[in-house]
């Protein structure tokens, strides 16, 4: 058992937000998905206050050892999420982490208020990769703004707050430490790296113009960012970015993560999370034996 912010988890592998829709997966794979559920906690896709349709297609570009997405955070809004999704997620039998994003502090306040009485939600992950309307900077890319946001949000909820850091910043360690000072219980990283692709005639391929790079292509960046954050904070770290094997997961744990999240690899193999946690357990057993 792992103690993550007071939540007991059976193993260190969880899903990355937005990379595993359990409801759709259950429709495809039936009860076997639940019986062999690969993750020790389930993280929702980002939920916003109002419903969002997401970006126009095309939304995907395959790159060297990875992909660029401009999905645009489609979601049913917090009300739709609470009414239609949360009850279904609760049947999974693992702790639930709800990922939320606001474009202002007031939106985050409203999202936290809506989740506060829902006992199914074990923790809240704050997606701070949204541009601040006033500065144009991602909220999470500005350490001072991030600390102020956390100072405002921390007293409003009993639930652990995980800050999902953006990698699109000059000093991710400074952002992590600002989140910790503001009262964050944990940080998670890395989100996708800003990227773009050109299609025919030199025009941006993705409907959203640019997108975010994920997969093995960002693994080495994730390792460096997790390592530098680990040097700056004492709170638990959820490491992610290009994890596709137990060895990749072990590397993130080695540099200071407590948990690892699997995103893009689940697209290639829906059961990747189970394989990765089995490989990780084998590595631990081998190390313990030697």
């Amino acid at each position: 058992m792992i103690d993550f912010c007071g939540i007991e988890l059976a193993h260190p592998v969880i899903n990355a937000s937005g990379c595993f829709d359990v409801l759709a997966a259950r429709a495809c794979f039936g009860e076997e998905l639940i019986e062999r559920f690969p993750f020790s906690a389930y993280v929702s896709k980002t939920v916003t206050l109002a419903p969002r349709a997401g970006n126009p297609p095309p939304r995907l570009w395959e790159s060297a050892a990875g992909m660029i997405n401009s999905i645009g955070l489609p979601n049913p809004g917090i009300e739709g999420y609470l009414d239609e999704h949360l009850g279904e997620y609760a049947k999974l039998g693992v702790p639930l982490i709800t990922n939320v994003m606001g474009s202002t502090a007031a939106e985050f306040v409203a999202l936290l208020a809506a989740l506060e009485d829902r006992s199914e939600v074990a923790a809240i992950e704050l997606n701070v990769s949204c541009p601040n309307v006033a500065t144009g900077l991602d909220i999470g890319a500005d350490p001072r703004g991030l600390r102020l946001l956390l100072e405002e949000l921390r007293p409003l909820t009993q639930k652990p707050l995980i800050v999902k850091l953006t990698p699109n910043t000059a000093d991710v360690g400074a952002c992590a430490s600002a989140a910790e000072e503001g009262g964050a219980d944990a940080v998670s990283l890395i989100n996708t790296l800003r990227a773009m692709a050109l299609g025919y005639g030199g025009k941006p391929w993705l409907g959203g113009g640019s997108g975010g790079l994920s997969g093995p292509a960002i693994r080495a960046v994730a390792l460096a960012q997790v390592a530098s954050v680990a040097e700056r904070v004492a709170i638990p770290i959820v490491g992610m970015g290009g994890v596709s094997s137990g060895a990749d997961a072990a590397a993130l744990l080695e540099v200071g993560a407590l948990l690892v999240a699997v995103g893009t690899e689940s697209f290639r193999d829906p059961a990747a999370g189970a394989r990765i946690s089995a490989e990780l357990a084998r590595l631990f057993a081998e190390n313990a034996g030697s």
Partner: protein
Amino acid sequence: MSAPFGRRVAVVVSRVELGAYVVLEVADDATPAAPGQFYMLAAVERWGGGEDERPFLGRAISALAARGERRVAFLLEDVGPGTRRLCELEAGDDMYLVGPLGRGFVPPEDGQEALLVGGGVGIPPLAMFQEAWGGRALLGFRDAQRAPGASLFDNPEVATDDGSVGHHGPVTDLLDRVLGEGGEFVLYGCGPPGLLEALRVRALRHGVAAQLCLEAPMACGFGACYGCVVETTEGYKRICVDGPVLDAAVLV
């Protein structure tokens, strides 16, 4: 019926060239696919390192036939690094398989005649449809290298863009003639976007129902990434889980 959870390794049992296409037969004893369903495929060895250092993700490929008990077949055309690598596979090679996935065709009701209108490498779901439920096949191909795809059907009518086989012109010429004859028709279509749009327009004009098998780049095939959406009258729908077969009436 659901697909096994996770990707599995399956062995290629035969590879046959059909003009410009390759037919792979793969040993698999999971739930058989229904017409219109697809699988996410990847080669176990050397998946990556092709054009632009791709492929990385699996490729969505329609089931062509659930032959006998423990076989599934696919029809492939080399259009890029993913399909190129799949086309290279030989009998005995290992392949990763996830599926069957998606919602397939709904068979016609009694008294309705199914018109199966296919273009190019879009024909597999229709071949499987005809095997299961019959129907009159109208097929369009670019040229004589691709027209052999028609051999997968019973009594097909063929059109080619270059006139080398069958009618010289688009397959919609054949369809317009049949629609002109009159009858209780349902259209079943699969092929390039231009063909699907032509079918949608004809279905509206003639007041006939149409089920179209759509395509989009897919990362996952099981609803996880939200990457494969198409705009419908009810907003964006994921082609992999709400389709790939959609009623033409919901498309915009």
